[in-house]
């Protein structure tokens, strides 16, 4: 992995290409400008709904990689472990939505639907390309980069006890980023924690 997360985020927020790794403009279907995953979400319920939609996308991606990619034992164990934790995040969010009378959105049903959502979030890699460990890990790192960004933005918007909950999930997503990088680079701390702030670029607005 040649690019750092800082490069990734900077490229994604600038709408530029980040060669070799997660975030970049994808295939002409991506947004031309910065990602704004919480744009228009102003109430706690609306923000939680966006977070839930993203968790479902993450789960779909992890499940797809677990099912279809050729992975080493370490990578497979890591993916399975993180997938279980993403399910926990979704369960927590689902309970909060239900409590507010907000219907839980349906998860992506096809690879092409999920790939379109990834493209809209400026994740360059696609599920239908993630056949091998390297591409699969890069895809998941790109998704976890977006996860960090979304939760970071949510913490700013949410009210009451919800920012702390979102921070607990953000901490876990950031650890996933580090864990996936560690699989690729034998735990190299410089590559696994590339910036003193996660995500490096904060609010695109």
């Amino acid at each position, binding site marked *: 992995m040649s690019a750092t997360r800082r490069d990734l985020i900077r490229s994604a927020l600038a709408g530029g290409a980040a060669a070799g790794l997660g975030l970049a403009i994808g295939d002409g279907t991506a947004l031309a400008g910065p990602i704004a995953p919480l744009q228009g979400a102003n109430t706690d319920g609306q923000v939680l709904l966006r977070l839930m939609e993203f968790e479902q996308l993450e789960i779909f991606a992890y499940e797809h990689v677990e099912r279809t990619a050729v992975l080493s034992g370490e990578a497979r164990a890591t993916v399975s472990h993180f997938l279980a934790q993403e399910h*926990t995040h979704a369960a927590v969010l689902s309970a909060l939505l239900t409590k507010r009378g907000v219907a839980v959105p349906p998860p992506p049903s096809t690879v092409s639907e999920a790939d379109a959502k990834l493209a809209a979030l400026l994740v360059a890699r696609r599920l239908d390309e993630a056949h091998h460990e390297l591409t699969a890990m890069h895809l998941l790192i790109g998704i976890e980069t977006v996860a960090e960004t979304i939760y*970071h933005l949510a913490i700013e918007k949410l009210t009451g006890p919800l920012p702390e909950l979102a921070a607990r*999930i953000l901490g876990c997503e950031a650890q996933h980023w580090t864990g996936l990088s560690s699989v690729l680079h034998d735990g190299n701390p410089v590559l696994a924690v590339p910036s003193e702030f996660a995500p490096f670029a904060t609010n695109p607005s």
Partner: protein
Amino acid sequence: MNAAAGLSRRRLLGVSGAAGAAALAAGCGVLPAKVSTLQKIALTVDRPDVPILEGLLRLEYTLAYAYTASIPRLNGYGLQAARWFLRQELGHIGAVSTLLKSGGVKPNTSAGSPHLGNPGNASEVVALLHRLETEATRAYLEAVAKLSNGQLRAVASAILATEAQHVSILRRAQGLEPVPSALLTGNA
């Protein structure tokens, strides 16, 4: 207390690494002192936020002190991680110090003399660093719950996420599961 408009939060986070390097000088003597490049930030720091930020700054100094003291006693993977994480803690010191300045408060510039115990070997040093980083994540979680506005919470959470990553690497160095919980707990 409104901060003077100037640098955006993104710029704060982007350039504070350099500022942080200067900030630690008085505390640990690690790096030569220089003037912070962060004099203005576009964030609002209200009076109730000040003691919270001061507490976080003390923790950051303690972490930087601990990493500095640990480096001579580490080798290999632990040494590589400690050197890198020290640099990042300096960045955190710079960011939190700048927030305090924006609130009209002169930030503390010393780690004091934290009691870190007497780890006997490299493994115990790593365990100590793991404990301190875990305490830091707990403190940042508490801060996120208490800070008065969303922008401050967002800055605190950006540091929190990095401390959580430090915890993961230090757990890995000890042969522990790097991501033990789906919800960061602040407990070892």
